[in-house]
């Protein structure tokens, strides 16, 4: 039977929405939305994106078998159910890259490393702590300060030859560090690369803690598109002598959570149906 499910990932930086058609084991991606929150109400954006993907796929709300939220969306009224971020990123990760054995999600405020098996089962994970240093938000702030567009960060960072490390652990104090660097005449690319390296070092640390030893790691979340960060993570892995791990990104990485939610929604839907059938029998 063909069903439609929607996954909505309400992050702290952006709201991502994915609409899927599933049929037995087959899933097809019909529509998507990614809205940067930029001080708007995320719940409203979620609603809006929901309407838009439906319109794009020419479906009505009744056609949707399961709407699953993830991220901060536990309270969304029109959702059928909620899955936790790492559950959905794991699933989304294997959807995007069947070889992925770990997913590293770098969001606006938190970073997470999730070690998974071939089916997207979470084996272990590690999240950054309550201190926001080295988050996506921080990188974005710095980039703004340096006058660099988010999309350019990666390219610039990759041209750096003498990365300047940021020593402060606190994002606020690190901002001052960066300001100091600018006044010392450190080139923009070296600053960006320095930040990338310190972020990468944190991420690799998370990854190591999960226990993964080899295999492919998929970067997900907004910063997965940042080629400079990807390169920095690669370097860091080599530095750390865990070269058996290969990192990759995917153009749709930012949707991993939304994809996972939609797919888990389909799974739950079937399971609930089966339970109902059993109950009726």
């Amino acid at each position, binding site marked *: 039977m063909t069903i439609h499910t929607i996954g909505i990932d309400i992050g702290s930086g952006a709201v991502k929405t994915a609409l899927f058609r599933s049929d037995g084991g087959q899933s097809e991606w019909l529509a998507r939305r990614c809205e940067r929150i930029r001080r708007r109400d995320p719940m409203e954006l979620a609603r809006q994106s929901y309407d838009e993907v439906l319109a794009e796929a020419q479906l009505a709300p009744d056609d949707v078998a399961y709407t699953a939220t993830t991220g901060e969306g536990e309270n969304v009224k029109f959702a059928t159910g909620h899955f936790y971020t790492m559950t959905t990123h794991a699933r989304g990760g294997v959807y995007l890259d069947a070889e992925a054995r770990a997913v590293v999600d770098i969001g606006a405020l938190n970073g997470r490393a999730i070690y998974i098996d071939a089916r997207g089962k979470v084996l272990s994970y590690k999240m950054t702590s309550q201190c926001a240093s080295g988050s996506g938000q921080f990188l974005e702030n710095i980039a703004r300060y340096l006058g660099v567009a988010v999309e350019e960060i990666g390219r610039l960072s990759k041209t750096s030859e003498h990365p300047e490390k940021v*020593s402060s*652990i606190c994002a606020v104090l690190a901002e001052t560090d960066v300001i100091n660097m600018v006044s010392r005449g450190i080139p923009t690319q070296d600053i960006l690369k320095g930040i990338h390296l310190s972020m990468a*070092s944190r991420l*690799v*640390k998370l990854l*190591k*803690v999960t226990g993964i030893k080899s295999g492919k790691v998929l970067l997900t979340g907004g910063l997965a598109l940042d080629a400079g960060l990807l390169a920095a993570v690669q370097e860091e892995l080599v530095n*750390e002598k865990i070269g058996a791990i290969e990192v990759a990104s995917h153009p749709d990485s930012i949707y991993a959570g939304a994809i996972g939610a939609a797919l888990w929604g389909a799974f739950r839907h079937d399971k609930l149906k089966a339970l109902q059938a059993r109950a009726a029998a």
Partner: protein
Amino acid sequence: MSTPIQIVPGTSTPKKPPPAQKEDSMLLQKELINGNYHELATAREMNRKVSATFVPGNLNELLMCFDFARSLPETNALQNGMRKKSGKMIMDAERDGHSEDVCTYVKADLGMMLQGQVGPTGEALPTPDVLLLSYTGCFTFMKWFELIRQKYDCETVMLHVPYQGDGRISKNMRDYVLKQLKEKVIPTLEKVSGVKFDIDRLRQYMKESVKAEEDLVWTLQSAKHKPSPIDGYFGAVYYIGPIFTAFRGTPEATKFYSVLRKEIEQRIREGKGPVTPEGEHPGEKYRLVVEGPPNWTSFREFWKMFYDEGAVVVASTYAKVGGVYDFGFRHDPDHPLESLAEYCLGCYTNLNFPQRIDMICKYLDEYQADGLLINSIKSCNSFSAGQLLILREVERRTGKPAAFIESDLVDPRYFSAANIKNRLESYFQMVKQKRAAGMGAKPAGHAPMPPIVPAPTAH
């Protein structure tokens, strides 16, 4: 804490080696320390068993009775810190699942093991045959050795040293330690080493200890001179190295301290101040007492912030972590085991708060210091938890200004030079300004600093 120092002059700073200020004592110390690492590295070849133990309350003389090669993990961590290797080790340990929040000595040690146990001098260190867990003054010690045991399956022997909660050593405490020594520690060491315990051998070592202890105390107290011929913190960490570690009880240590003493006598005669890594001290402007361990990863930079401003540390509590000798305690060859128990119970971090505060106030007075500086160490709950009360109490009791800075032992991420410099500078300027305004003249018109317990108003 707890960390004694064995610094090999010259190797500790990558930039410029210290100028030709190498006195005999320094050369000797370098020899001793390198010698010990070599001994450890070749212990297996030489068919020697290896022990590991902690600095505070270390039972070096006892371990020597069983022919152990002696490793001190704290010292390894600090040596690695000075050689700027600890940062990586700590990160490795954190990646191996250790929390960011816990003591970095432990993580530096575990990180070193993860890297193949290569010691500070580049030679591989053997896995210990026995962990002597002399649980003195720090709770983390216990977890530390449990962690090592879990990984390496080493034989562990616990010597639980009760804390001086009431500020005194009771008979119950002494008996407890003594009994553990006799019934647990010595039998285990005999078993592991295959050497029979000989109490006369212990007495012999202790006689050497006493000689070194006398000269050490003399050295540390030489700072009462004006100008002080030594730095009682940055310099003292070199001086306490041999006696707080694998050398107490050896003739080498005795010799080291007598050479040291002669050098300092000479400096006093010449009216000289302490030696710094950059040569003679630029002149004593401030005399400070310091509480808390130093930072090792930026030791030279840290020290420079003091001598550049003309500050000399005349006394420090850290120079007492491996034994508080300046209030009279000596190892006693006539009652060897009893005096070991006494020694363990009396270590600085085994003292309670009123005792620690008394000691600091005494130093401020006896060494005619201008004020107290606390270097609070993120790693070390044993030292740090409650230091802010020490600060308040000392200020209140002595009327001398105190200041507070924060860093870590061996985690370079926690040494913020700008931050520390800012505070030190402010502190020195404050002391100077106060002095210029006619120090001591208690200004009228203000309420005095409130007592520790503010009068609470009902909520």
